[in-house]
């Protein structure tokens, strides 16, 4: 990588971090006045953006892909159909429980 390319990517990382912080702060500031259904949507967007930032920084974990995919598909329903969005969150959580239990099984076996 050339120096300019490295500088550019560092600058881009800086911008992306600022984008993220800006998103969370402005979302937090507005939530008190916005519809209740916006809360879950903003949290889920925050999660997605945080995972993307971590990936930028080289922290990538395939096991969160399944739960996040469910949310990505259903995110648009957050305000139009909060119940359906709630069910999507349940499904994402169920998939994360599966990952958690699988991790626990693996750990147990390793300790045997």
């Amino acid at each position, binding site marked *: 990588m050339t120096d300019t390319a490295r500088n550019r990517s560092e600058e881009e990382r800086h*911008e992306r971090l*600022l*984008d993220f912080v*800006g*998103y969370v*702060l*402005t*979302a937090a*500031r*507005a939530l008190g006045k*916005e519809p209740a259904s*916006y809360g879950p949507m*903003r949290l889920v967007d925050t999660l997605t953006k945080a995972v993307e930032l971590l990936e930028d920084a080289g922290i990538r974990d395939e096991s969160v892909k399944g739960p996040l995919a469910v949310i990505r598909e259903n995110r*648009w329903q957050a305000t*139009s159909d909060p119940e359906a969005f709630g069910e999507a969150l349940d499904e994402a959580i169920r998939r994360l429980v599966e990952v958690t239990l699988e991790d626990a099984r693996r750990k147990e076996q390793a300790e045997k």
Partner: protein
Amino acid sequence: MVLDVAESIRTRRSTRSYDSTKRLPREVFEALEQAVLNSPSGSNAQESHFVIVQEPDQIRRVKRFAQGVSGNPAAVAVLCSNRVEALSKGGADTAETLRFVNLGIAAAYILLTAQSLGVSSCPARSFHAKAIQQLLGLPEEVVPELMITLGYADQPPRPKTSKPSREVLSYDRYGKESI
């Protein structure tokens, strides 16, 4: 191809995902300018101000403080209202209420003008007004009230969920359903 008003109304949907490689041609900006300049206002007070942000770095700065803006639009129209001018030119009713009606009409003009030219859009109210005011260098009395993102959609819009027409529309008196 240019769509007429009825077709623009029928086909317009809020777009939250844009093709970030496509910029808007000059004719679109010119048409938006005409939309704004020809929009009506109570007492002809013309107290609104519009900032059309199209420089990519400035769009990014604006987006950073606009949590309700999704996707990578080619431009963002920031619709602002001047409360002081509203009062001086239109009186108390304009300062308290009509300036928002005026801005709403201007917003519709912008949305439909864009749609007629094949440009997609999405209104957004979720942003931090003070931050946007600072970024755009707006005078204290010129407050951003609404944004409209503009660009070329890169996926079909989500389906529309409309109330049944009888809940929205009556003829001659409340609740009478047909002509």
